[in-house]
């Protein structure tokens, strides 16, 4: 049996395998991004970077719930200037690095990209969907005009591959997705976390310091699968699935739904970076069993029914 081809290409961005590290997970230092790459990730996305440094919210910023985690890290990041230094501290040529960006204004995005673009970054991912920080994320991600302007501004500034990450905290995700496509996004990452909350029954308090946070993990997988399925029917650009992948079956489910690649986040808390090799192996064996030569061949098969 021929060895199946795990590599994928998303609008010019080539990955040795379709598994990416999701943004915000171990993504603040090159050291840990590199480690995740060495552990087997086909690409790694940084934590979302903003124009100014942000310490984020107070702790607790994370709490476990049934089937996942809530987090309200609050877009903590060292700011784009400092992050450019981080990227310059060591050679990153060999790293399939995607830089995630958030901001409130098109001009902010433009400025960040102009600072970063000279570095050996492979792609950008615009986080237009953080569910728990006012003024960024969800609010931007629900506003068609803001999305259009931001995407256009970044495309104007940079020729690199551009992913746009969207949130399911909206009435009509397909509409928002089409706006991003029209504005020039090369691919869509679906989904970011879902607004949620957990209250401690002993102290009567919301556990997260920010009260509301984003739900991630297996709990949201069926929602993410639905988003990928519906959006991939409606747009022509590739989709990167994200949300609750913990094993190779989950990854396959995303491919069948229409994703060309998948991102892994919360599973790192359960299984550590070694999960990448394990899922890769599972995908490989699955393709062999099904007589398929590449991941590409199974993308979107669920649409046939």
């Amino acid at each position, binding site marked *: 049996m021929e060895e199946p081809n795990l590599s994928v290409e998303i609008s010019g961005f080539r990955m040795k395998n379709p598994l990416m590290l999701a943004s*915000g*997970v*171990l*993504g*603040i*230092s090159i*050291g*840990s991004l*590199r*480690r995740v790459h*060495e552990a087997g990730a086909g690409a790694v996305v940084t*934590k979302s970077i903003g124009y100014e*440094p*942000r*310490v*984020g919210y*107070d*702790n*607790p*910023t*994370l*709490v*476990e*719930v*049934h*089937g996942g*985690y809530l*987090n309200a*890290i609050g877009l*903590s*990041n*060292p*700011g784009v200037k*400092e992050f450019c*230094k*981080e990227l310059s501290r060591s050679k990153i040529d060999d790293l399939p690095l995607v830089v995630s960006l958030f901001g409130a204004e098109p001009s902010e995005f433009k400025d960040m990209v102009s600072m970063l673009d000279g570095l050996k970054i492979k792609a950008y991912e615009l986080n237009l969907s953080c569910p728990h920080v006012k003024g960024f994320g969800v609010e931007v991600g629900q506003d068609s005009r803001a999305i259009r302007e931001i995407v256009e501004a970044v495309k104007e500034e940079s020729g690199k591959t551009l992913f746009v990450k969207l949130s399911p905290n909206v009435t009509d995700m397909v509409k928002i997705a089409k706006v991003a496509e029209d504005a020039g996004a090369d691919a869509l990452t679906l989904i970011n976390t879902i607004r949620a909350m*957990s209250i*401690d029954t*002993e*102290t009567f*308090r919301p*556990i997260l*310091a920010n009260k509301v946070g984003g739900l991630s993990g297996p709990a949201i997988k069926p929602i993410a699968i639905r988003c990928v399925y519906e959006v991939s029917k409606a747009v022509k650009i590739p989709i990167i699935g994200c949300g609750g992948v913990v094993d190779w079956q989950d990854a396959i489910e995303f491919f069948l739904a229409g994703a060309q690649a998948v991102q892994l*986040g*919360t599973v*790192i*808390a359960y299984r*550590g970076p070694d999960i990448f090799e394990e899922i890769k192996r599972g995908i490989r064996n699955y393709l062999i069993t099904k007589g398929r030569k590449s991941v590409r061949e199974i993308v979107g098969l669920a649409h046939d029914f």
Partner: protein
Amino acid sequence: MTSNRPRIVRLVDVKDESSTVRTMTFRDDLCSKAKPGQFIMVWIPGVDEIPMSISVIKEDLAGLTVREVGEASKTLFDIKAGGTIGIRGPYGNGFTPIIGKVMIIGAGTGLAPLMPLTEILAERSASIDMIIGGKTIDEFVFVDRAKRALFKTKSRLVTTTEDGSHGIRGLATDAILPILREKSTDIIYTCGPELMMRKVFSIAQESGVPVQASLERVMKCGIGICGSCCIGKYRACKDGPVFDSPKLEEVKDEFGAFRRDHSGRIIKLSTN
């Protein structure tokens, strides 16, 4: 499944270790089974959640030792017996106890994770040379507890102060070489200010003695996902907080050189 949530525990006892350091005990089955060197995330509702080493590991009691530093630790410091806190964990790898000729060197609340380690090693009759350092006598903690632990073993306790107010005048690290020269040592355990630990590591490397050092980094999740505690390729909360010599070697560009603040920005460790 849903274990990474704060468990609310009541403080059984609160004991002054010094004017700025207190040990607080509570009942918690999981912490009573912790390895020395593991830590918990302590939730002070309405204020913050901060990492604390487990400093007391007994069958029916566990505890932490807090120094007032900023808002969260001060609020925690002021909670009286009968008050409640939230805890999750134990997290991290902890120390690996080696029953042999060991050296333990710590300062300040860095002694918190070293105390249960010392007690376990003493019980299993290791030969222990313990060095407790501090700027001045008022800052000393755990000296009596250390004496009680070391009492029955072939052990020795050395204290150092920078102002000479207790024990030998000088730095804790000054006391290492004399001991290493005097007798063979299988391992050195250390926790305290990072620059001290860095020095311990240098001396140990030169002398060919392995080290286990417990490092502090900003911790948010405590479970190896947020990345705030990363040093080199490692997550202090999950792959650490205890780093052995090969790992310390791997992260030597960062160890003792810089840490990151809550935003992820690099903060150089000052050399004073």
